[in-house]
């Protein structure tokens, strides 16, 4: 949608530029290392998986990339309609606007991403209202449409999220984030804690939305099976650093780094 008004020439040119670029990103918690010296590019329409065990710095990296945590060192650049914006050099008010129009973040714990005391419709409409929509009927119409798009029953529009199941909450988070049609989506362990059939349907939904909306996605997961289903490319993290990077099937089927080999071999097979 960002390229629709201009010539295909520009679309072609834009495809050659990453939508997101991290340059030597480091974040420290006092003496402890969250992530250290991570550089990465995310390309239009790409799903980048970040795998690693608990405490390897995945979530810290995701928070830094998605604008929620200013890194101790390094830069995060976002490309928007041909201009490159340095995320943490922007004034905070500008960054916030950018975050809610260009970026979506789906958290593992839905409580972090959803207002539990506000109805599903209010949650989905929140970004639209922040962007100035002041028409109740249109807000509801958008919310209803998005409930359908993420396969939630529109009859539950006025229900509070605390009455939703875990899988429904993740769908609600996705709807809430995608309602402003951002180009970047960050997923933090989106399927953890869901049972396998719910996981499978959620992954299907995500894959469909990524294709339909031409989203670029960074997904953090410890579950290699989820990475295999969704990711095009993988980063393997250990101790805050990227130890291996490559196409998803190359990394999973021919792991090079000893840690990646360990990770792949310790996967449970049902």
């Amino acid at each position, binding site marked *: 949608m960002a390229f629709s008004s201009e010539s295909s020439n520009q679309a072609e040119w834009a495809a050659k530029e990453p939508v997101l670029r991290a340059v030597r990103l480091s974040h420290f918690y006092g003496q402890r290392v969250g992530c250290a010296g991570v550089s990465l590019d995310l390309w239009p329409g790409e799903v980048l998986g970040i795998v690693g065990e608990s405490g390897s710095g995945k979530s810290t990296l995701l928070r830094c990339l998605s604008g929620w945590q200013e890194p101790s060192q390094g830069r995060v650049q976002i490309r928007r309609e041909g201009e490159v914006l340095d995320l943490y050099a922007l004034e*905070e*008010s500008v960054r916030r606007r950018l975050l809610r129009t260009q970026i979506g973040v789906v958290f593992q714990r839905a409580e972090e991403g959803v207002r539990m005391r506000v*109805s599903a419709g209010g949650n989905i409409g929140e970004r639209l209202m*922040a962007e100035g929509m002041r028409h109740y009927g249109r807000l509801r119409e958008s919310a209803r449409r998005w409930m359908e798009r993420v396969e939630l029953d529109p009859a539950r529009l006025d229900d509070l999220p605390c009455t939703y199941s875990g899988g429904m909450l993740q769908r609600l988070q996705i709807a809430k984030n995608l309602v402003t049609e951002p180009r970047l989506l960050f997923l933090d362990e989106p399927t953890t804690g869901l049972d396998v059939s719910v996981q499978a349907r959620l992954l299907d939904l995500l894959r469909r939305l990524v294709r339909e909306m031409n989203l670029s996605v960074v997904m953090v997961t410890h579950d290699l099976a989820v990475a295999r289903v969704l990711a095009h490319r993988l980063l393997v993290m250990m101790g805050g650093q990227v130890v291996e990077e490559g196409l998803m099937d190359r990394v999973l089927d021919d792991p090079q780094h000893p840690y990646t080999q360990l990770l792949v071999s310790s996967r449970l097979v049902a």
Partner: protein
Amino acid sequence: MSRTPGLTVPNRSTEGGYARGGALKGLPGYNFAFLDEVTKRMIRRTLLKAVAIPGHQIPFASREMPLPYGWGTGGIQITASIIGPDDVLKVIDQGADDTTNAVSIRSFFRKTAGVATTTRTGEATVIQTRHRIPEQPLREDQILVYQVPIPEPLRFIEPREEECGKVHAWADYGIMYVKLYEDVARTGRIATTFDYPVVVNGRYVMSPSPIPKFDTPKMHRMPALQLFGAGREKRIYAVPPYTDVKPLDFEDVPFEIERWSRCCALCGATEHYLDEIVTDDVGGRRFVCSDSDACAQRRAKAARDLSGNS
């Protein structure tokens, strides 16, 4: 205000222009209107700032007052800072002049400032109010002082003070609409009936204090100066005369005020804000004006008309 610092040492006892000639009537041992002159000047400076930025909450060093928080410590400090010996003070509580709070604040200023007090809206120059705006339209030469319990309109949506500050600074008020949306989604209309959030001068979202939304339209372009004091929260804000005050609403769900199917049981008014009063324990009830002065005036006029006609 334009005194050059260092040239003259202000004489505390004669400052403020009230004490000249020793004609001041007040309580012996106390300064005029209870507060000391330095505190009054601090509050007046805050008021000037508040008037300059309509609807913006200005912090001030709120003092302990001889009444509990929640009884109007903010309003009373503003009144004490602006009142002069020639002023006529009216105090209302929920519209009524004869409630405990109103009576005691009136007597407080009668004692400490020796000012005249009144219950007539038209005669007052300063009106301190809790939770109502008088029915009789106010004039340019009057000042309305509101008692405010919670000055932050975002308080129940965003608990973090720092975040509230950012929302105001960037006029990023989308979150206020989430609350309105929830109201409409749950009840089919905007269910907020008091302390209805307003936008002042097209910029700041402001709490009008817990006045019924019936009174909200009266704030719009009011000829009188409106001052708001929150003693416990230590905030002062203001709406200068003839300033735009617009309630928040949706394009397709407009702001509406309360309506009653009855009239006042005492004066028969239909255009006043009515209180519902339970009169017995078998479900009896009646509606009467909340503004006791407006009700009394209307009854007096009816009596005059009646005797004039007979």
